[in-house]
């Protein structure tokens, strides 16, 4: 996994990009950010030490797959009122998508991402960034700055058009 901060920053990038087309998304940005760390919620198992974490690994492993994370997103969506559920589901899913996409490029000690579980236990990924390395964090920070500037630019253009 990439570190939590990188995941949150990439979630923020997703919020910025989505809000360029759908401005309402910014109001619900917390959902994308929560989605961006959702597949890692099993990480609290490390508090039980290496042995405990290894034993519980497979219980939480499905959360790092497309099917498992979508089921979790579905469960969380049910906490929200009917009229918001579609937005909640889409925003949480956007966050989860950034998480799984980011982890695809991490060099893991424990293998890679079981993206297509339960159809296969095979893990996939492309070794590009070290876990907790500076590289990915810097890329995420630059992406946040670029997308924030881009959104501001779009907002200014729209404001100017309105004034004209």
């Amino acid at each position, binding site marked *: 996994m990439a*570190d939590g901060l990188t995941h949150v920053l990439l979630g923020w990038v997703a919020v910025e990009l989505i809000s360029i087309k759908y401005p309402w998304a910014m109001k619900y940005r917390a959902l994308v*950010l929560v989605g961006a760390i959702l597949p890692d919620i099993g990480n609290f198992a490390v508090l039980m030490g290496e042995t405990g974490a290894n034993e519980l690994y497979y219980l939480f492993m*499905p959360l790092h797959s497309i099917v498992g994370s979508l089921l979790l997103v579905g469960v969380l969506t049910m906490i929200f009122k009917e009229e*918001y559920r579609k937005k909640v589901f889409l925003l949480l899913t956007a966050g989860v998508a950034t998480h799984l996409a980011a982890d695809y490029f991490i060099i893991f*000690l*424990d293998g890679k991402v079981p993206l297509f*579980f*339960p159809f296969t*236990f095979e893990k996939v990924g492309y070794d590009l960034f070290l876990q*907790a390395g500076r590289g990915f964090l810097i890329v995420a920070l630059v992406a946040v700055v670029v997308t924030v500037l881009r959104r501001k630019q779009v907002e200014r253009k729209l404001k100017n058009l309105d004034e004209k």
Partner: protein
Amino acid sequence: MDDRRYGVPREIISVVLLAGLVSLSVYAYVFGPMESPTTIEVLRNPEVHEGKRVEMRGEVVRSEIADGVLYMGLEKHGRSFEVYYEIQEEEEEWLEEIEEGDTARFLGTVRIASEGRVEGEEMYYRSARRQKTLGVLSFLGVVVIAAVIYIDRETLKEMIVDG
């Protein structure tokens, strides 16, 4: 507003989704391919595993790179073994960072079982230093999310089902 989707109560949908999630976890727990054979099994009976591809993990007690080959002494539950791994060009930079106390995972073939030597095919390591960084950065990530949730609390409260 009637809190139903196509006539199905919210509770039923929640239970079905939750059951699906739990089923996946149980399926993964029961049928997930465990580390086989385990590092300790290999170290206890090295001769049985000679020539076989194994996965081993251990704590780094010694690390040295010479002529493009990484030699490492690893230890697991008090038992030590040696691994050697031909470094790929692109890996050189990050494998040089290995320090004592790091955790290494090794996919390789047991060559000289009696001496507990393993020739690697794939090599990953988790730096103790990086693990601390990972913990700090992950904590910062949680802080950012908590702050955003706090700022947007009224909006979120309004969205959540009452009771």
